């Protein structure tokens, strides 16, 4: 079966090309991060330096503000993920289970908010937050990120709730539960994968957001790490080694997060609920 062999080898070849293409920037990031300064410009373009060192990591962790930025990012992204998931969960449940006056209008309005280029909103947002003392503040960033991500998270959560048959709640309510009890004991455990996915998505979105973090928070005390990365760009030079080391470190929480939730992402929890 030569055609079959050809089919599968081209199949895998295409996948390999795609994976290479997708992962190459990541590889380059790590490569530069472990290249000592003296080899950075002297060796030309090579796939791997002749000598590696962790000096950039040591410097970034011990002698820069990076740990502070990192902590700020964790607070902002974690706070945003929690608040958006709560709001999106509540809103998604409402959209999925209840019909009410003005529902199509509300949905359309939520969609419209997703159509604006965010740059347009920087100035008004600043004017709004400054008198409230929410610029140069982590709380301010959490509020802004929550506002931007909540509509999308609501739609996402709605689709997860839609996938859970209504009969499950009805059965629970007939069994003697209240609607909220049915939600907590039956629906919530079944939506955990959806909640994890939504939380993960929002966390990474907030983690890598630069524009608002840069515009609203100018003091280093309240900077998140994407802004912090810019600190490695000085007027006269760019410290690529340290910047890349910081970038590698910044990948860790996102990786850990997805590692923790990946079993929820792949599990089909509702199997067996209804006829199958």
């Amino acid at each position, binding site marked *: 079966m030569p055609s079959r062999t050809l089919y599968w080898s081209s199949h895998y070849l295409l996948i390999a090309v795609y994976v290479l293409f997708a992962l190459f920037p990541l590889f380059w990031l790590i490569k530069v991060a472990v290249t000592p300064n003296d080899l950075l410009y002297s060796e030309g373009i090579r796939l791997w330096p002749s000598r590696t060192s962790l000096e950039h990591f040591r410097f970034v962790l011990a002698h820069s503000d990076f740990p502070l930025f990192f902590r700020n990012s964790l607070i902002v992204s974690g706070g945003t993920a929690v608040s958006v998931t709560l709001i999106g969960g509540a809103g998604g449940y409402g959209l999925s289970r209840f019909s009410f006056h003005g529902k199509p209008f509300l949905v359309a309005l939520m969609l419209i908010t997703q159509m604006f280029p965010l740059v347009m909103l920087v100035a008004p947002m600043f004017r709004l937050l400054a008198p409230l003392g929410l610029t140069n503040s982590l709380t301010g960033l959490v509020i802004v990120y929550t506002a931007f991500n909540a509509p999308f998270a609501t739609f996402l959560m709605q689709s997860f709730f839609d996938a859970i*048959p209504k*009969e*499950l709640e*009805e*059965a*629970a*309510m*007939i*069994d*003697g*539960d*209240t609607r909220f*009890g049915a939600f907590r*004991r*039956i629906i919530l*455990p*079944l939506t955990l994968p959806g909640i994890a996915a939504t939380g993960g998505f929002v966390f990474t979105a907030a983690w890598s957001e630069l524009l608002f973090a840069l515009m609203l928070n100018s003091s280093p005390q309240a900077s998140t790490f994407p802004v912090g990365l810019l600190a490695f760009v000085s007027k006269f030079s760019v410290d690529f080694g340290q910047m890349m080391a910081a970038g590698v470190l910044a990948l860790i929480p996102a990786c850990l997060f997805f590692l923790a939730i990946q079993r929820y992402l792949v599990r089909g*929890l*509702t*199997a*067996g*609920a*209804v*006829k*199958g």
Partner: protein
Amino acid sequence: MSAIDICGVSKSYGTTPILHEVTLAIGAGEFVVLVGPSGCGKSTLLRMIAGLEEVSAGEIRIGGTLVNDLPPKARDIAMVFQSYALYPHMSVADNMAYSLRLRRTAKQDIETAINAAADKLGLGAVLERKPKALSGGQRQRVAMGRAIVRRPTAFLFDEPLSNLDARLREHMRAEIKKLHREIGATSIYVTHDQIEAMTLADRIVAMNGGQVQQVGSPLELYDRPANLFVAGFIGSPAMNLFPALFGRRGGEPAIEHAGFTLPLGHDVTLAEGAALTVGIRPEHIALGAGSVQGVVDLVEPTGLGTIVHLTLRDIALKAFSLARPSLMIGASVAVDLPARNLHLFGSDGARVER
């Protein structure tokens, strides 16, 4: 006092009417089947009794208490869903214990109740399994078990067997009937399957277009359908129905159809020349004798008997015979439509009494 009283209940979604002034009293311990084609409002009525749909007009009482505005949990009813609606993240035992735990029943009593139900339903070996590890029939039993551990005032069944294959359905049908005999709780059962309705019910409520068409025992509905809808819906193969005129032949009441006349043998309150629909059950048509000649179109042996498709002038008829007539397709055969087995329906569709 009846266990469940439905009085003038209507339901509409916006301006779309779903149910129109349904009135029905269900006695304690009675097994009532709501039957009708899909969209006739039977499931909506059941969900209104359960408290899952709001009542637009009218009153529903359970055990004498007006429940129109009570949430499902306050109605003391159990329901078995078509999709079973088992809680997928809980074991079989936890599924059945759910309602008891919510009522803060003592652990000991929960265990006793679950074991009793599991024994009754043959679920003892799978109590620790999750629903997804069960067969369709087992899931159906768990759904039943979840209902019976509660000992509710009434059981509601929403097409509980329609997801099972034919053999299992027949088996579970008998089990439900046995279970009802043992427990004796008031039951309301919704189905579109008239065989299920006939076999299970103490009383059948035939519904169509949001209205109750007839209420009665299975054989009452079968032998004396109140209107054309019930006549055509109950029975398989279905009752033969054809248009005719009421007339008199030599002073004797008869029905006339293009080309043949059937004497009725008794009078009915119809004007001469009135249009009517004549119905006759397939098993009442006798082949090989009779005044009318028909042509055999098709012969379907079912093993139990034989369904013969006939053309009588311009009328297509089905005859059912327990004998095994050897008929050639296209052959001519004498057909007898006995007057005593004819059902007559007026132009408004209602049964003409005789």
